[in-house]
């Protein structure tokens, strides 16, 4: 089951990556939209902190595991 899920994910990822094509500067209107930027947005910071406090899968450098206590 797990293998087939990984296989499907890999297949989907390769499909997405290999379907890339060049985007000219004047075609970047949608890509330049603020909401299209990758990574966490500032408004999500509180939620992201809460996940780091309350879940075991926090990355390093997060409030609970380093750089702050968050120990309640």
């Amino acid at each position, binding site marked *: 089951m797990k293998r087939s899920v990984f296989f499907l994910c890999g297949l989907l990822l390769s499909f997405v990556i290999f379907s890339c094509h060049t985007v000219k500067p004047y075609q970047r209107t949608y890509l330049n939209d603020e909401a299209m930027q990758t990574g966490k947005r500032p408004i999500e910071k509180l939620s992201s902190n*809460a996940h780091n406090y309350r879940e*075991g899968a926090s990355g*390093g450098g997060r409030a609970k595991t380093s750089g702050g206590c968050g120990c309640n």
Partner: protein
Amino acid sequence: MKKKYLVFGLFAISSAYGFGQSITNPYPKKKIPKSAIQILYGQYLQDGEHSAITGGIGTENLQVYSPEFIVGTELDSLRSYSVDAGIDVITSASMDNIDFVKSSASRVSTRAYLTLAYDQQFKKNPNNGLGGRGYFSIESAYLSFGGALSYTHSSLDQSKSFTAELETYFDDLRWGRLNGERPLQLVYPSELRYKQWFQAYLRQSFNLTLSFQQTINSRMVLAIMPGISYQQGLLSTPYHRAYFAEGTERVENLPSKRWKFPLGIQLNSFIGDRYILRTYYRFYWDDFGILANTFSADLGIRIMPQLTITPSARLYTQTAANFFKPYQMLDTTMTYYSSDYDLSAFNAFELALEGNLAFFKRHVHRIEMNNISLRYSFYKRADGLYAHMISTVFNLNGFKKSSRKNDLSDLRLK
């Protein structure tokens, strides 16, 4: 005859216009906001019944109020720096239970933090850049210093970019810096202070985060974000109790080293002219035994050019750490043990609704309002813990007097 005059007139006007343009720079240097100001405020309200301070039972009632202020300044088109300062005011009922002080409703503590960052793109190759960051944080039970170095590379056509960041944190977990208690020492639960449970009081963290971003087409972008993290030192929280099946009680004990391997994938798509779908998946594994999967999706709906409403959902699942057992179910033969439910096996979900209101160049004196965002979210964990979160962000631009004038003159030229 009339035609002749008309042609001559048009020629004269266009010549004059062209002459005027040739005096001024037809490609004026792009003016950028001198300072981008971000004001954030967050409020976090949580409750639950599995506090690690009382060994996996007891209140987890907690309120956090978090104002934060970020100023980013672009010195020129290649260099920028930012200052990020904030305070978390924490009211925690469970913290009272370190001493079992039942008289007060809750204990109030404060965390203050400051981050200074500097970014520089190379003059000869502006598609490459370096960044540095320094971090400082203090609260009653914690002192932390950190630093980070990052490298960014973008392809010429901006369709690909790569970022690598190396972070380090040096933490001191001794109590007493903000409330003046001396000497500084680790604080254990009141009934367990008959011995020193830990010799170490420092913790070091090293994180390497990579990010590969690829533009798929004019409406779709993909980012893959692998990372690796290593921590050593005191990873236990010294005032977490652990109750054993035999009826004995100790301080939580976790290994002194931890490796973490997160991998995140994000795909953002612009659908039609109104919808922005952001999907995110994260896989996580660490040598404590936690394996976690996160999936989140949010759909931005641009109701009008100024207003975007974004509902979002997040699902999370994790396996338990090898040494987690609930209250009074720990075995004394275990080398490492904890009843911290953050390390237990659970599923969690979060639902959120966000509104973003953009302002188009509304400025008062030297301050220009860009947009305001407001977000409410509800988080629920399968063990009963739940939280309400409200956050707001104000995005402003600040101009120096002269640069504002320059900006306006440029606008007139256009």
